[in-house]
């Protein structure tokens, strides 16, 4: 009997103590037996298998039907667009080896690679791309993201069902030459071609299997990898595509993607050496990670902004710019990023993050001390008709997530302390929150975020165009709309950037949104994953990585 009690006590004790023990010791001890990368530090492991955490279960592997980041990660390995994106070089040739752009910026001619091959050995042709682009905008495909191809001539009309897919401004001149005509010059268009909605699909396969072609044993792809296995909710396995044009420079033989939505679960699997790379990290365990796994923590700039939207169609923010400015100034972004979010997020004083060919707006008050900002905020707050005796009562709406709640609590206390505002936090489940936000009836302040689809400031600014379906603050500024519309037609990059810069300045003056911080990607990467290079849009392609000896 005593023995049973003792064993039970021991088990309980070890459960408690395990929280303080050296993390993942079993795996690291094993790894520690060999120097990572061998004596040279570059020696490769005999087994080239990568295991990646990948967030949610993909909706589909059909590039024209999916929309999320997890799907993009998978499709980036399976498919290749006309262009590709390198972390350091930016847009580089993909399935097309070269291209020419007409002087007016509306006609693109792409030259395909002669050695481009599908995973079944068929040649990748200009016709494949023309078919893929037409299929993507065809309403019958039910693509969620075909709108990305809007710059192509007639794309919007085809998507709306007003023109047939054949009317799309795409033409295969011959097997290796593709012409794409645009509605207007679109400087970011080469980046769009690296989006899944612009990937090619293998016509005979799609026609043979219909809506169920994107499955193991059927899916034919033109990227560095081909689909080997897919166990729903468990894992997706890809193996090297031996026909890929750059297969000789690809090192990893097999990649396993694991859909793990819970970040704590993912961290535990990483610590148990079941993953080489995580998708994300739990906010609350960053301190522990910094202390215990500092060499494996990779934090890098991510093209996205976390902001608070203000519903300007309803009181108290309707026609009350002083109040909106006061709230904006009273948010201490330094404290928030340093002590609340803590992953190295960048305080956002302007709305657009550091996008390509664009000079960010930095308002004058960004150089002030927080005391100076608060003093100005108080002045504006009183000018708006509020005071400590007559405080603003406002609701912050956020979707259920620990991080959003923590940030909302911090901002509420900043507003309370600086201005005496009484804040009520309203938490809603994701889909409910989206609907509430969109109806613009009851929302006052809501949390929001935007991650770029393509590396261009326009992607952020277009949200706030009065006709945008994403304009949840309900802001309507004709001057802003005119600047954006002019920028959309402008072929001169410098002039275009200047127009967008002016537009962003209007946002900062009118404050329909309060930028809080610019995102960073945060993940753990095992020391034996070689050649890992952070990308501003988090495009991490397996073909660029390698597994070092360990």
């Amino acid at each position, binding site marked *: *009997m*005593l023995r*049973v*009690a003792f064993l*039970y006590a021991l088990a309980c004790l*070890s*459960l408690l103590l*395990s929280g303080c023990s050296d*993390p*993942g*010791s*079993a*795996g690291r001890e094993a790894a520690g037996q060999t120097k990572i990368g061998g004596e040279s530090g570059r020696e490769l492991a005999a087994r080239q298998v990568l295991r990646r955490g990948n967030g*949610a*279960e993909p*909706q*589909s*592997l059909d590039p024209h*039907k*999916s*929309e999320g980041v997890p799907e993009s990660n998978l499709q980036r390995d399976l498919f290749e667009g006309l262009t590709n994106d390198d972390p350091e070089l930016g847009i580089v040739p993909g399935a097309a080896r070269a291209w020419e752009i007409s002087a007016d910026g509306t006609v693109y001619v792409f030259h395909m690679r002669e050695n481009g091959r599908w995973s079944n050995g068929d040649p990748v042709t200009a016709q494949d791309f023309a078919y893929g682009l037409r299929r993507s905008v065809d*309403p019958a495909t*039910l*693509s*969620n993201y075909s709108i990305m191809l809007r710059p192509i001539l007639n794309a919007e009309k085809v*998507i709306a*069902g007003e023109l047939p897919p054949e009317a799309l401004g795409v033409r295969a001149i011959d097997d290796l030459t593709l012409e794409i005509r645009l509605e207007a010059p679109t400087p970011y268009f080469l980046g769009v071609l690296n989006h899944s909605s612009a990937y090619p699909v293998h016509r005979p396969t799609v026609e043979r299997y219909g*809506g169920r072609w994107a*499955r193991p044993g059927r899916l034919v792809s033109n990227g560095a990898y081909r689909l080997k296995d897919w*166990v*729903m*909710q*468990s*894992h997706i396995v890809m193996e090297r595509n031996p026909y890929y044009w750059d297969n000789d420079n690809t090192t990893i033989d097999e990649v396993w993607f*694991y*859909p*793990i*939505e*819970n970040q*704590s*679960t993912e961290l*535990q*699997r990483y*610590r*148990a*050496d*079941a993953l080489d790379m995580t998708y994300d990290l739990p906010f609350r365990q960053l301190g522990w990670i910094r202390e215990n796994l500092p060499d494996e923590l990779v934090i890098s700039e991510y093209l996205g902004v976390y902001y608070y939207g203000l519903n300007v169609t309803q009181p108290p923010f309707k026609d009350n710019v002083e109040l909106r400015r006061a709230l904006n100034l009273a948010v201490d972004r330094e404290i928030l990023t340093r002590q609340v979010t803590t992953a190295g997020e960048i305080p956002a004083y302007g709305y657009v993050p550091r996008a390509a060919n664009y000079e960010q707006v930095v308002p004058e008050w960004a150089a002030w001390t927080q005391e100076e900002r608060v003093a100005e905020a108080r002045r504006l707050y009183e000018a708006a008709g509020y005071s400590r005796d007559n405080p603003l009562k406002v609701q912050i709406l956020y979707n259920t997530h620990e991080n959003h709640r923590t940030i909302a609590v911090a901002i509420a206390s900043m507003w309370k302390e600086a201005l005496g505002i009484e804040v009520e936090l309203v938490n809603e*489940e*994701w*889909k*409910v*929150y*989206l*609907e*509430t936000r*969109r109806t613009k009836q009851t929302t006052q302040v809501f949390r*929001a*975020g935007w991650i770029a689809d393509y590396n261009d400031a326009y992607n952020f600014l277009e949200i706030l165009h009065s006709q945008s*379906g*994403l304009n949840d603050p309900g802001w309507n500024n004709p001057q802003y709309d005119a600047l954006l519309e002019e920028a959309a037609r402008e072929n001169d990059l410098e002039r275009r950037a200047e127009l967008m810069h002016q537009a962003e300045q209007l946002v900062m003056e009118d404050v329909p949104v309060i930028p809080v911080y610019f995102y960073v990607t945060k993940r753990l990467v095992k020391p034996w994953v070689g050649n890992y290079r952070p990308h501003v849009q988090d495009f991490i392609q397996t073909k660029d990585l390698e597994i070092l000896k360990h």
Partner: protein
Amino acid sequence: MIRYALTRFLGAIPTLLILVTLAFFMIRAAPGGPFDAEKALPPEIEANLRAAYHLDEPLVQQFGRYVLNLAQGDFGPSFQYKDYSVTELIAAGFPVSLRLGGSAMILALLVGVTAGTIAALRQNSRTDHAVMAVSMTGISIPNFVMAPLLILLFAVTLGWLPAGGIGDGSLRYLVLPVISLALPQIAYIARLTRGSMIEVLRSNFIRTARAQGLPERTVILRHALKPVLLPVVSYLGPATAAVITGSVVIEQIFGVPGLGRYFVQGALNRDYTLVMGVVVFYGALIILFNLLVDLVYAWLDPKVKYA
């Protein structure tokens, strides 16, 4: 008995129909739709999608369509997992859930009945107190707390077992999820068995058996165990329901690709057909299992009459 089973089976049809009706209108009443996303769809694209999934029809018409398809065994297409039908998803997830839940139930019965019997035979001894203390712990600690602790100890710290997933499908991947799922059931069954065994051992027929000089082992195994198991068998219905609902959490924590994960993801994504499919499937399963439990109960206790 066959007539009884048939009557119960037919009686289950209206129950299922009520379940389908309630579930259908409840999920539709939830705010937010399957196509709502941060990056909102252009209206024409959303209209296409709504038409393709018949969401543009009046709700009653949609319900009629759903019931008609269901009667033909068609659960419809998944809104979220676009290349798959709900039937395919259930067919993929259920064997995994069955393996997990079935193993947990078998483990719970074996360990629970044994521990409860030992505790009852040594009533008020240290063994009894120890078994009851462990049971109390098992009941008190929810499995969403227990599971991460087990992972931390056996996967992260000791490296003995996998931290999650199903890997190559080998048994070692099942150990931690099964234990996490079985622990509360072991505790309940142990307590039930102990109480029942103490009561039965005090009854006249046991006293008679002992007076006849039968060995204690025979008294326990041949005479006492059958009536002792009656409350345990009664508990199997709720236990199955508990294992099914518990597996939703456990499958999420361990990344086990069972039906539970589809249920959670389906509800969050407003994947109407997927949620309905899992609800109807689980509902039918629970009804069927309760029927089986009643039949086993009647077999164990001759006093029960089929009516």
